């Protein structure tokens, strides 16, 4: 501990690395199950599981290289990473390949680069650098506006692709801002917006407005002595009204038809098990049929016979649920929770606020992927195509998550030093 250089590897948090490796191993076995075919030998480099093996090796090498770099490197180069990412995000709109309606990939040889994956850690780094400057106060607009701009620029470019899922991930960074001093009212306002959005879609506007009026009346009655609070409530009410009327507009004019249908499905407004609801329905069937103990490795009929779409990537959790049952699902979710809590723990033990902010960003991004992906496969969220960290098939996603995590590990291993 005293001699940083000699004790370098002892400072790396091996518990996190263990969790990281186990998630990748779980991922590989389940990808193998998803593409399993009896005629095939166990390891075939042309199949998804074979390719994923290569990605895992690359990820480990990338992780090792990051650990060998100097910690200051990330602080110093964060604006450059950010700049390059923004350029790539612009480039992808011009030269990118359109896959499934999203212009999100830049083809390089036989691989496809997905700039939005790299934007996650580049943005996190720059945000961390911005917030670690002395005397920042998020209650102060001088700090808040640049922070929002740092987040807003990549989100804006990603929405142009359009990749709503990746854009959504960036909104999770609001927790980072909250941790660093953003007023909790923003969180509450966000929560109220989500609730109002759902209610407005489920019921007619009149009922929602009447409901809001009732709530307003109760609040005013309770706090009738406090003029200031009453003003806040009335303002909130007016803003809510504006939001309610904008929901319709957003829903009808900004959302794409398939996004509307996905939201309608999750809210139970429409039922369409053969068409738009097919994916979620089959996904739920696969997971639900796993039962308590699962059908056994390579025995999942729903995933093996292709009833579940995208089963190696976004719907990889179906294989887990079907073949390993509730016990397997529980284990996977428990590993994620451990990883998330561990990352928060790592973040909080940093002396530099740069490292801490970055740590929180990592936790938020992993959490957002983890929650949205699994919630989608079990029908708690509309279908949003984002991968399950470290488990889903795909090189860009695996390597960018590895970079994201290992930068934190590097910063953590150096937490006693000064950046």
């Amino acid at each position, binding site marked *: 501990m005293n001699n940083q250089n000699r004790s370098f590897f002892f400072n790396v948090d091996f518990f996190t690395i263990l969790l990281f490796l186990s998630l990748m191993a779980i991922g590989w076995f389940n990808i193998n199950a998803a593409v399993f075919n009896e005629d095939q030998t166990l390891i075939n480099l042309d199949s998804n599981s074979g390719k994923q093996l290569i990605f895992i090796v690359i990820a480990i090498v990338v992780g090792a290289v990051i650990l060998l770099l100097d910690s200051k490197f990330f602080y110093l180069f964060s604006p450059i990473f950010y700049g390059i990412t923004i350029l790539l995000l612009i480039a992808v709109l011009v030269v990118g390949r359109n896959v499934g309606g999203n212009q999100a990939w830049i083809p390089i040889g036989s691989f496809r680069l997905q700039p939005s994956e790299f934007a996650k850690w580049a943005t996190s780094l720059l945000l961390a650098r911005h917030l670690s400057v002395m005397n920042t106060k998020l209650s102060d607009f001088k700090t808040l506006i640049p922070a929002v701009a740092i987040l807003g620029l990549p989100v804006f470019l990603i929405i142009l692709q359009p990749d709503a899922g990746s854009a959504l991930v960036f909104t999770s960074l609001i927790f980072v801002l*909250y941790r*660093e001093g953003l007023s909790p009212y923003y969180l509450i306002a966000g929560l109220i917006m989500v609730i109002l959005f759902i209610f407005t879609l489920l019921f007619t506007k009149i009922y929602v407005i009447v409901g809001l009026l009732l709530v307003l009346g109760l609040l005013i009655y309770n706090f009738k002595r406090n003029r200031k609070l009453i003003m806040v409530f009335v303002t909130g009410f007016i803003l809510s009204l504006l939001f309610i009327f904008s929901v319709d507009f957003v829903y009808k004019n900004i959302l794409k038809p398939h996004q509307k249908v996905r939201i309608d499905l999750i809210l139970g407004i429409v039922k369409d098990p053969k068409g738009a609801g097919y994916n979620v329905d089959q996904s739920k*069937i696969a997971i639900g049929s796993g*039962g308590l103990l699962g059908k056994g490795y390579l025995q999942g009929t729903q995933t093996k*016979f292709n009833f579940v779409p995208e089963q190696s990537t976004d719907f990889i959790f179906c294989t887990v649920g079907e073949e390993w049952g509730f016990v397997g699902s529980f284990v996977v979710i428990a590993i994620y929770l451990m990883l998330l*809590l561990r990352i928060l723990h790592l973040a909080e033990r940093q002396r530099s606020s740069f490292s801490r902010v970055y740590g929180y960003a990592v936790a938020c991004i992993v959490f957002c992927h983890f929650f949205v992906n699994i*919630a989608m496969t*079990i029908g708690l969220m509309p279908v949003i195509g984002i991968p399950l960290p470290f488990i889903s098939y795909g090189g860009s996603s695996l390597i960018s998550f590895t970079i994201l995590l290992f930068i934190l590990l590097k910063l953590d291993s150096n937490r006693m030093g000064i950046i």
Partner: protein
Amino acid sequence: MNSFFKRRYIIQGIFILVTIILLGRLFYIQVIDDRYKLSADNNVLRKLIIYPARGIILDRHGKVLVQNEPVYDLMVIPGQVKALDTLEFCGLLGITKKDFDRSFKKAKNYSLYRASLFQKQLSARTYAGFQEKLFDFPGFYVQNRSVRYYPDSTAAQFLGYIGEVNDKEIEKYDGFYNRGDYIGKTGIEKSYEELLRGQRGVRNIMVDVHNREQGSFFDGIYDTVAVSGDRLISSLDKELQLFGESLMVNKIGSVVAIEPATGEILASISSPGYDPNLMVGRQRGNNYMRFLNDPYKPMFIRPIQAEYPPGSIFKVINALVAQQMQLITANTYYNCPGGYRYGRRGFMGCTHVHGTINLEQSIEESCNTYYGYTYSRMIDHAGMRPVNAYKRWRESVAKFGIGTALGVDLPAERNGLLPTPEYYTKVFKNDKWTSSFNISLSIGQGELGITPLQMANVMAIVANRGFYYKPHLVKAIGEKKIIKKEYTEKNYAGIDRKYFDPVIEGMSRVVNAPNGTAYFSKIMDIEICGKTGTVQNPHGADHSVFVAFAPRDNPKIAIAVVVENAGYGATWSAPIASLMIEKYLKDSISRPKYYTERLVNANLLPGQKKPVTKISAKKDSTTAAKPERKAVLPISTPKLKVKENE
């Protein structure tokens, strides 16, 4: 660390809360809710039903009466059907777009996920063409089935036919059958359905999302094999049956031949009949409607469903019953002045003035007067009130198998009619009636209804001198050649053996004595014992009836022939019976060809020109005007062309 340090707990709390929500939801759908397991099975599992071969039916000598032929049923699972080229599809099957829409809608209404029959019984050629393109039409598949084939097109009404189950049958058999399955609808096919159908097998296979087969479910441990239906050996003699059918072409009526020693039905002809092969295949529905609307009713199974007053053949029963009651003996003489007077002014005419005759002669010459006296003794002079005497008489007659169904192994057998004393009391308004009130029963007319099968069975009783086995069409079931127990039990008619002798002597003379009513039907070296009958028919010309058994000693065959609207029994029915007997006993016909041809070619359908008959000179029937009926070409067995007789 900074001043907002405590907010970490809020964030940790949110992470943990969300995780718990995910786990709760997973626990619900994986452990609590069973729905998803069922859906998963529906996705992957397909139960293929393997249909067993239906049991075949052989005649008594092992010749095939009914066998199976492969056909191909096109099945559809509507939920799996993708957009398809309807035009090409219809072209391959040779159907119209309208047919397609109708069939598809029907299947969809039944179930989106379960297979239903789309087009039945594709021919081998259609199937071959369609099979190559089958992969273009997901959701459709072809199931092998077999249909019935009747190599000789014989005994249609008795073998019966199979058809798709209806809702009532599905309910009755409690889910054994699915829509589109076949079931015996009539005849042996129906009465032996449980044996003929065999056991269906099930193969559980797994399919992928494109409905391609992916192997057996659990290596086939839940699969069952199909077991073929039992083979039935019918009592019918195919040659005799075919010969009888050829004789009955263009006639309405029945021939029933029974082996007296066993009750096995050797031949059973219901005319007009139809080609059973017409009740198979895609044209079945049309043919069925055609038969249903045919004025000569080919679907009517006359031997077990047509009820006639038996006419003079009933004298045999009265002669036996009266002897058993010890009211007459073989040597009882009555004088026939040409009729029987009864009541105040009643008179029952007789064909001749027979003079004083005994029992044997009364049978031989079919004297009405003799039986007027005999019946009167049984009812009016039996030492009890006539109404009770009638009751006793009726019980004795019923023991001959009259008035109740015999229990043949065919569905829809009729009881016939043997009126109760209460019936006459009701009509007479009190119970003081005497034999005068229903004297026509003495000669088999009046309120009597007897099926041809019952007539033949009476002959079996006489041939056996007092007992019968229930007539039946199936003599052995399956490999072990089981026979139903009820067909191995003797039924006694309650007449002592000795009383048969004079009656049989009389019956022998009917055929063998020169003045017997059926002398024309005598065969040189077979002693046939028979009795003619002419049944008065209020709707048209009289029915010609003849019953017989042969040979006299150790009889091998008992037979009843009814030809409707054909006049005297001796004219048509007796020669037919005689030919049938000779065919069965000798396997060849000794009489000249014209003798057979006259019968084969005769067209006795109502509304046809009466054929010239060589032997009817004896007593010509009252050829009154026939009821006007449209002459429709009857359905005949295909081997014999319909010929008009001038």
